[in-house]
């Protein structure tokens, strides 16, 4: 017991020191608290968000900050656990007195923090959590969604797939919420756009499945025209490797959300399967514009690697925070939120708008197919079809309909 009380005492002392420090700082900085998963497999994605954010913050601070104040940030590791994430968000708001919260990759954590910031009236920028409830059912004035969600990914894919000649579809995926949400998103929208499609069957495997061969042979025996594969995380690579080993990718075309993303293709090098359809919000090599090139060059210079989608989320979040305060003209949360509504900014992927009605960032979605590329050591997306945000993001009415209860 004695040891615990010592620990408690020590942490109280430490916290009070930190508090004094932060109070002295608070007068001339804008504090951003970042709650995200920094342990375990999710770090593949979250480190990019943080690095993109840091890059933008350094630039903003170097050019004098916002309204004479510098942006200061502090991170907390929620370990992919909603209860820890919520406790950390509370600590950041109540003790650290942060002005803004951002994070997380975990949808459950995001929804928990969302409830909390609604009461505390703290602006919260969501980076990476993919649940469509974040802006729909559980949306409110203080939450900003900086990434796509499962419903949007599904719609974007459905728009592109509806133009393809395939009729007999098979649906397969990781048996958890994200997998089912992606599969439903694609399938429901595809049926609306092209009523002639039919579902021949479904396969669901457990998250973390290591061997897909038995599933693939079973799907092949049913002879579908096309397979919608709703995998996430490491399942993306695992399925592609199995598709390559069984020759699936040459026999039946399939789609995975984020199949063309660098995090999935880079580890596989030249061995990734060609001809896999995928949707993604960002590539370091596309669009081939001056803004994107400049962003990639900056990012590479700072971190010695190519930026991936998370880097764009983090980078743009910092930009919107800066411009939001500039437009608000003073450090005031309500004015800040109002200023951001409908604001659009230049980004590496063109002009991006935060929609007024639901605070959703309208990102373009790129539908493409994996292909070998002599310029790189890994496969890239080719034949890219750009689907603009306004075309695939659910309309304001559709989103707000969910909020009324």
């Amino acid at each position, binding site marked *: 017991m004695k040891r615990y009380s010592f620990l408690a005492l020590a942490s109280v002392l430490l916290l009070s020191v930190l508090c004094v420090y932060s109070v002295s700082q608070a007068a001339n900085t804008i504090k951003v608290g970042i709650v995200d998963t920094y342990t375990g*497999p999710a770090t593949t994605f979250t480190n990019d968000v943080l690095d993109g954010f840091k890059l933008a913050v350094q630039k903003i601070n170097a050019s004098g900050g916002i309204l004479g104040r510098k942006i200061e940030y502090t991170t907390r590791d929620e370990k992919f656990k909603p209860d820890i994430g919520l406790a950390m968000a509370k600590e950041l708001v109540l003790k650290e007195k942060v002005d803004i919260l951002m994070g997380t990759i975990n949808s459950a954590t995001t929804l928990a923090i969302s409830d909390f910031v609604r009461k505390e009236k703290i602006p919260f920028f969501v980076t990476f959590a993919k649940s469509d409830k974040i802006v729909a059912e559980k949306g409110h004035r203080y939450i900003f969604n900086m990434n796509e969600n499962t419903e949007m990914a599904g719609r974007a894919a459905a728009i592109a797939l509806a133009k393809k000649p395939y009729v007999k579809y098979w649906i397969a995926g990781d048996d958890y919420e994200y997998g089912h949400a992606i599969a439903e998103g694609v399938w429901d929208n595809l049926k609306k756009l092209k009523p002639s499609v039919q579902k021949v069957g479904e396969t669901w495997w457990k998250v*973390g499945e290591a061997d897909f061969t038995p599933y*693939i042979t079973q799907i092949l025996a049913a002879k579908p025209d096309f397979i919608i594969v709703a995998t996430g995380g490491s399942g993306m690579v695992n399925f592609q*490797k199995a598709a390559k080993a069984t020759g699936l990718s040459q026999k039946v075309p399939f789609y995975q959300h984020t199949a063309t993303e660098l*995090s999935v293709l880079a580890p596989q090098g030249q061995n990734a399967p060609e001809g896999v359809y995928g949707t993604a919000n960002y590539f370091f090599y596309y669009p081939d514009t001056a803004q994107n090139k400049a962003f990639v060059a900056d990012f590479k210079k700072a971190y010695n690697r190519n930026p991936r989608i998370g880097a764009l989320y983090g980078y743009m979040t910092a930009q919107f925070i800066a411009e939001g305060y500039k437009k608000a003209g003073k450090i005031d949360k309500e004015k800040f939120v109002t200023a951001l509504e409908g604001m659009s900014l230049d980004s590496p992927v063109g002009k991006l708008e935060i929609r007024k009605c639901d605070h959703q960032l309208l990102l373009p979605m790129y539908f493409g197919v994996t292909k070998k590329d002599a310029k790189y050591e890994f496969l890239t997306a080719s034949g890219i079809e750009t689907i603009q945000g306004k075309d695939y993001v659910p309309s304001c009415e559709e989103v707000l309909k969910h909020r009324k209860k």
Partner: protein
Amino acid sequence: MESVLGFISPKILSQILVGLSRTVILFIVSSGLSLILGVLRIPNVAHGSLYMIGAFMAYTVSHLFGGGNMGFWMALVLAPLGVAVVSFAAERSLFQFLYEREHLMLLLLTFAMSLVFGDLVKMVWGGEYRSVPVPSIFQGYINLFGGLPFPIYSFFLLVVGPVIAILLWLLTNKTKIGKISRAAAVDREMVGAVGINVSWVFATVFIIGCLLAGLGGVLVAPTVSVTLGMDHTLIMEAFLIVIMGGLGNVWGALLGSLIFGLTQSLGILVWPQFGIVFPYLAVVVVLLFRPTGLLRSTW
């Protein structure tokens, strides 16, 4: 006879073969777990971590040797040895002092070790997905029974599995250390009393068990993305297999792996939407009728 052959359709044959190749990795890992469980009486939750470390080491070794065929063969030899070194360090520094503790303590301790190993892997290799390419001689697939594809690498696994099983049989039945360890599993005081250094016997068995985990990790690496968290799913399955087969019985691990692998691949054929429930259903059925496992448990 005709009707029997008709029933065994190409689809079923293909699923059986695919299920068998899956069994190999499950068997290699769970036999190591069972060995440690039987002789040392440690329910080693960190066994999965050693499997993960094996896969990460395979990545490093295969890249050091240029990522081609040579890389794979070197990984197959060096990575399990690397895991053996890690496990040797863990055994001498920690586990050897804990053999007399109760099982709950050991369970907690090894669980803690799995977290420590997880963080160590993150520190050494980072959070990125890693991939070990399939060696070029095993790349591709062949069409079996009615044109259903079967990866060549899975054939390789089908060869490795029986080899490992035979080596394990030779080790436990024909070598001195095998005989001593079987005796130690039954009565460790008596083995100590006849003048054998039980501590070193245990260390050897522990290292062999972990080596098997590492080998499983190397063999699985070309088929999956090597990533943090790959230990969690496997350790669950390995424990179920060991429980189903009979605690501490290496042949029980083989039987359990066969049941686990085959019920899954055939289950997918019967009911693709719920293919994952069949292996677990098999565990439930086995435990209902034979609560101590299919084969004689050494506990």
